[in-house]
C-alpha cells in the first residue's frame, strides 16, 4: 500500500470518526454526572433532520448546525424531565427517546428525502496543512472537524482542571454526598443531559450537512449506539474518546482499506465491521470486571431522589 493511500484512509478515518467524537463527548459528560442516556441515536437523528431542514430552508449550513443543537437540547429535555423529575427508569426512557426520534425524524424529513444542499466546504489551515502527512490528515477538513478538536481540549480542561469538573464528578460518584455539601444534584444533571443533547445534535448535523449532505431515514446507522460503546471503551476518559472515535472511523472505512489491498468481499459483509468491532472492543475492555467498576461513575444509571437519604 503506498503512502498516498494511507493518508487518504487516515483522512477518511478522521472524517468518519468526527460524528462519533461529538456524540461520545456529549455522552461522557452526561454519564459522568451519573445519567445513562440511551436516546443518543434518536437525538442524533433529530439533529440530522432538523439541521438539514434548516440548512435547506435558509441556505446556511451554519444555521443548520444551530437548529440541530437546539433540537438535540429539546430532545434531551424530554429525557431529563422523565428521568430526573419523575424518577423514570433511565434505560426505558432512553429507548423511548430513540424510538421516538427515529419515527419523528423520518416523519418530518419525508418531504426532503433525496434533496441535496451545499454543506460545509473544507478549509485548509495555513501552515499546519502543509506539514507532510499530518497536514493532510488533520488540517484540511471542514470547520466542524476543527470544532471537534477544540471541544475535546476544552472539555479535557474543564473536566480535569476546573471546579465545574470536580462538581460534575462528585455528582456522578456520590450524589448523596454531593447533595449534602450543597451541590444542586438535579441541576448539574440537567445541564449534563442537555449538553449531551446539544452534542448529539451537532453530531447529527455533521452527518446530514457534511458527511453525506442529504437526509435519508435512519442515516446515522447505529452511530448513537456505537458512541455509547465508545464511552465504555474510553473508560470515561476524554482524551481516549478522541482516539477511540478515530479507531472506529478506521473500522467503518475498512472496506476502502481492503479494496486497497485488492481483496474482494461482499459490501454487505463489510458493512458489519463497525458493529463487530464494537462487540470485540467491548469484550476486551469489560473483561476486567474490577477495572470497569473502578472507572465507571459510581451512580451511573441509578435514580437519585433528593427526598431519600443514602
Amino acid at each position, binding site marked *: 500500500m503506498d503512502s498516498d493511500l494511507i493518508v487518504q484512509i487516515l483522512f477518511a478515518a478522521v472524517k468518519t470518526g468526527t460524528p462519533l467524537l461529538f456524540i461520545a463527548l456529549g455522552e461522557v459528560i452526561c454519564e459522568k454526572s451519573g445519567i445513562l442516556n*440511551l436516546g443518543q441515536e*434518536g437525538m442524533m437523528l433529530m439533529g440530522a433532520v432538523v439541521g438539514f431542514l434548516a440548512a435547506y430552508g435558509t441556505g446556511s449550513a451554519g444555521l443548520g448546525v444551530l437548529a440541530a443543537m437546539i433540537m438535540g437540547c429539546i430532545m434531551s429535555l*424530554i429525557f431529563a424531565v*422523565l428521568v430526573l423529575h*419523575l*424518577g*423514570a*427508569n433511565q*434505560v*426505558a*426512557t432512553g*429507548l*423511548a*427517546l*430513540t*424510538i*421516538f*426520534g*427515529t*419515527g*419523528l*425524524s*423520518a*416523519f418530518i424529513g*419525508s418531504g426532503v428525502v433525496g434533496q441535496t444542499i451545499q454543506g460545509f466546504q473544507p478549509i485548509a489551515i495555513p501552515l499546519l496543512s502543509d506539514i507532510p502527512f499530518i497536514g493532510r490528515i488533520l488540517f484540511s477538513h471542514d470547520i466542524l472537524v476543527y470544532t471537534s478538536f477544540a471541544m475535546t481540549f476544552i472539555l479535557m480542561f474543564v473536566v480535569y482542571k476546573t471546579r465545574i469538573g470536580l462538581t460534575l464528578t462528585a455528582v456522578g460518584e456520590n450524589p448523596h454526598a454531593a447533595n449534602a455539601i450543597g451541590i444542586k444534584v438535579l441541576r448539574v444533571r440537567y445541564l449534563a443531559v442537555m449538553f449531551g443533547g446539544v452534542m448529539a445534535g451537532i453530531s447529527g448535523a455533521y452527518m446530514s450537512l457534511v458527511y453525506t449532505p442529504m437526509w435519508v*431515514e435512519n442515516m446515522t*446507522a*447505529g452511530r448513537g*449506539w456505537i458512541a*455509547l*460503546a465508545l464511552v*465504555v471503551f474510553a473508560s470515561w476518559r476524554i482524551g481516549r474518546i478522541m482516539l477511540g472515535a478515530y479507531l472506529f472511523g478506521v473500522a467503518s472505512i475498512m472496506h476502502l482499506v481492503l479494496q486497497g489491498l485488492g481483496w474482494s468481499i*461482499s459490501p*454487505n*459483509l463489510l*458493512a*458489519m465491521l463497525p*458493529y*463487530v468491532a*464494537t*462487540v470485540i472492543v*467491548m*469484550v476486551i475492555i*469489560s*473483561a476486567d*470486571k474490577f477495572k*470497569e467498576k473502578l472507572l465507571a461513575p459510581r451512580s451511573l444509571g441509578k435514580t437519585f431522589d433528593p*427526598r431519600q437519604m443514602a
Partner: protein
Amino acid sequence: MIHIQARTEPSSLMKIASPLLAIALTLVFGCVLFSAIGKSPTQALHVLLIAPLADSYNIGEMFVKMGPLLLCAVGLSLCYRANLWNIGAEGQLLAGALGGSAMALYFGDSNSLFALPVTLLAGIVSGMLWAAIPTYLKLRFNSNLILTTIMFNYIGLYLLIWAVHGPLRDPQGFGFPESAMFADATLLPTLFESSRIHLGVAFAVISAFIAWFILSKSHLGFQIRVFGSDEPAAKYAGFSGKKLSWMVMLFAGALAGLAGVSETTGPIGQLVPNVSPGYGYSAIIVAYLGRLHPLGAILAAVFMAVLYMGGDLAQIEMGIPVAVVSMFQGVLLFFLLACDFFINNRLAFSNQATN
C-alpha cells in the same frame, strides 16, 4: 395547593390504569399533531384505530401483525423481569428468519412431513444462537448486554441482506435480492379460510400462556421475580444468576426466532430483506405496555398491531408517512413512564401552602 406526596404503598390501581391513561394521552397528542399538519384529527384517528378493526379481512391482518410482536414481547417481558436488558429481539427475529429460510430452501420441493417442523426448529435454534452470543459475552466477559444485543441487531440485518444477495438468492429471480418462494410443505398452514392468520399466531398466544405459567407457577418464575426485585436476596437464597440468565435469554431468543421463521414461512412465503418492520423494537414497548406480564402482553400486542395496521392505512388513505407509527410508539412509552410516576406517588391537595 397541589403537591406531590410519596405513597406509602404502590398503587395497584395505577399499575393497571397507567397504560390506559398513557394510550389516552397518546391519542390526544396524535389529535394535536394531525391538526398541526392540517389533517383532520377525527379522520386520522378513525383510520389509525377504527379502520383496522372495521372488517374481517383487516382484523385478520391485524392478528398477522400481532403474532411476531407478541412472540418477541413475551420473551422480553421475562428478560426485563430478571433485569436482563435484552434489546436484541429484532436481531434474534432476523436470525430466526434467516436460519429457518435456509432450512426451508434446503428442503426444496420435498413433501416430507418433517419439512415444516424442522424448518421451524431451525428458526428457533437460530434465534437462540443469536441470543446466546451476547449472553455468553455478558456472563463470561462482563460486556454490556444492551450494547451487544443492539450490535447483534445490526450484524443480523447485514447477514440477512448478504444472504439474500448471495447464497440464498433465487437463481431464477432476475437478480432481485429475494429467495425462491418456499414449497407448500414448508409453509405454515392458515387457521381460517379467507384470512392469512397462520399457525404462528396461535404459537404466539400459546407462548404467552406458557410464559405466564412459568412466571407465576414454577420455581424458575419465582427465581426470576426474586432476581428482578432484589438481586442480593436472590444470591443469598443460593439462586444461580448465570443459569437463570441463560434460561431466560434462550427462551426469549427462541420465541423471537420463532417469530422470524413464522413470518417467512407464513405471510411472506420467502426470505426478503425487509422481513420485519421493526417488530423486535416495538416489542419492547409492547412488553412495557403489558406491564411485563405475559398475558398483559397479549392485549398490548393487539393494540400495537392495530397501530401498525393503522399506520399502513393512514399512508394509503391520507398520505401520512408510515414513520408516524414509530413516533407514536415512542410517545406512548414516554407517557407510560410518566404515568408510572403515580404508582409510587400521588397528588395531594391542601388548602394551605406547604413548605
